[in-house]
């Protein structure tokens, strides 16, 4: 009897010890996974110990496996460190010259990364956590901030400053256009407005990477007027093309006509010159020949002339006393001796 209680005690103790061990083992098994913190490439992680922030993993060197006290002593909060896009709906705004246009812009933003030695409480991701808390809230806040900045910025510009083509054939100039400049100004304002004491990075812990105007448009109500204007512009341009074509073709025709006329006139004058030369040459040849007996030549020529002049339809009226008839009726007269002759 005396031995049995210790035995009983020993077995009871052993049994309770084994329960304790297995309980501890289960607890350890359960708690062990919560001791590890995996910091993903896409995340920043904050470790809280009972509400107090004890560790912030927000640098590129922090990615990978870390350790902490098991849950529920230390808990983690994860934040997406990737670039987020906010593209709010287009809104109608007025330019300085009271023209209304629809401007659509987008923001690319992310929670800022800290570099080097920064005190735990100054980490941007903590600022983000405290001021905004979540990506959705941030997107919303940034969107409305963007809208108000765009409205003020556009209000300082004339529509002509934004749309800079002087003619319908003008192309983009080199370097940044007015929209890119506007985007740059909006970005500066978005990071820190002049009246704000601290930049957005210090307020909300986020960094605006990219702000751009992605669309300028006219409000639906104005489109009818725009179409009318486009129509009349097109008609004017078509008219201009047609009349330019007409003028050009007329000019080409008249030029060609002038050239042709010149060619013909020059040819005619050349022809006259050639004919003159021929006449002169013939004259010289005949004169040379006829100078041997000018009188004989003259007589021969008048005979030829008479032969040619008196054609078929000529009515020859001969006087009864003419030489010709006399020759027929009376025989040859005394020969009229030529006055002079040259050999």
């Amino acid at each position, binding site marked *: 009897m005396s031995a049995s209680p210790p035995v009983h005690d020993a077995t009871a103790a052993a049994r309770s010890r084994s329960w304790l061990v297995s309980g501890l083992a289960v607890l350890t098994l359960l708690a062990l996974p919560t001791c590890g913190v*995996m910091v*993903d*490439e896409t*995340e920043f992680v904050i470790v809280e110990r009972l509400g107090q922030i004890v560790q912030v993993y927000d640098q590129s060197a922090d*990615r*990978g496996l870390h350790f902490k006290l098991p849950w529920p002593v230390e808990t983690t909060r994860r934040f997406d460190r*990737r*670039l987020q*896009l906010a593209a709010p709906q287009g809104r109608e705004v007025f330019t300085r010259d009271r023209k209304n*246009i629809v401007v659509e812009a987008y923001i*690319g933003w992310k929670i800022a990364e800290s570099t080097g030695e920064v005190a735990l409480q100054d980490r941007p991701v903590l600022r983000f956590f405290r001021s905004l808390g979540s990506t959705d809230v941030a997107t919303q806040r940034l969107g409305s901030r963007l809208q108000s900045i765009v409205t003020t910025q556009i209000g300082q510009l004339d529509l002509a400053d*934004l749309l*800079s*083509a002087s003619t*319908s054939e*003008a*192309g*983009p*100039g080199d370097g940044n*256009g*007015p929209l890119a400049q506007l985007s740059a100004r909006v970005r500066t304002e978005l990071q820190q407005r002049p009246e704000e004491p601290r930049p957005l990075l210090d307020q909300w812990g986020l960094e605006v990477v990219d702000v751009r105007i*992605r669309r*300028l*448009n006219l409000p639906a109500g104005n489109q009818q007027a*725009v*179409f009318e204007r*486009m129509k009349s512009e*097109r*008609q004017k*341009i*078509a008219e201009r*093309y*047609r009349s330019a*074509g007409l003028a050009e*073709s007329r000019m080409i*025709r008249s030029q*060609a*006509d002038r050239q042709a006329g010149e*060619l*013909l006139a020059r*040819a005619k004058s050349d*022809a006259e010159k050639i*004919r003159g*030369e021929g*006449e002169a*040459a013939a004259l010289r*040849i*005949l004169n040379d*020949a006829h100078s041997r007996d000018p009188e*004989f030549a003259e*007589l*021969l020529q008048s*005979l030829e002339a008479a032969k040619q002049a*008196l054609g078929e*339809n000529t*009515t*020859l009226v001969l*006087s*009864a006393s003419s030489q010709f008839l006399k020759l027929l009726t009376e025989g040859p007269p005394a020969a009229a001796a*030529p006055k002079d002759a040259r050999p």
Partner: protein
Amino acid sequence: MTRLPFLCGLILAGWLASGTYVVPANEKAVVRRFGRMLPGTRPSGLHWDLPWPLSRVDRVNVTAARTLLLSEESVVSPDRLPDVLESRPAFLTGDKNLLHVRIAVQYRLAEAELADYLFRQSEPEQRLRLLVESAAAELVGQSGVDFAQTSGLAILNNRLLADVRERVAAERLGLDIDQVTIDGVEPPLRVKADFLDVSNARADMAKMISDARTLGEQAISVARADARQTRDQAEQERQSRVTAAGGTADRFIKLVQQMHADARRGPLPYEASRRLALGRYRADAVRQILSRIRAKLVVDDAAPIDLVLPRTRTP
């Protein structure tokens, strides 16, 4: 009780085996172990890494050409009202016209910058879309409508490609831009006819000018031929005149020479032989003339004559 360790071991082995993964031939894998990216990529084949959730594997196709299309309702369905169609967004050109622009972007993932593509941004494709859209808006906003639509389209395309490439590189999207093409620039439906009319007018102008050129060239070549003909004719006349004169002169000289020769040799002096010759010629001429002439009148010197009657009688 003996089964428990066995069961635990089996589960453990199964869990470890689940770390096996296959990378297909056209893909590369990026491994994050405990969240941290391992350097380099895994080629295609069978691999093993720590099982989930300790490691994560992202398989990406780095060689495939991807296409991003920026267009607003490229399909125009006939059963929709034009009002609905016009409500689609358009780009505002620098001279306050509206144009619908279709842009296609061909791109690939940059293998060297896979981390940028996978882990730097939440929506890389959406970001690329916004980026291209803003670059296009900036360029179109500086261009006139005719420049954007026709004359400067190639220039705009090149500028857009350069801008997009530069921005994608600067913003580290992890993408390689192969090509950016402006597929189509179209005026809104309601003014399309008027735009068409302008291009017709442009064609009309070109046609008028080319017609005028053709006609002008024709006129000039005709004139050139005429001029040639005129000159040739004159040349011919000159030739024939000179030749004829030469002939006449030759004949005359021969006659005169013959008569002189006769005078030297024969009994007749030069004048006498010339008279004889002339007489012959004259008689010859008279014969020729009289034989040719149909109407001949012989009138007395003393009697008055009426010349009208015989003329009317001769047909």
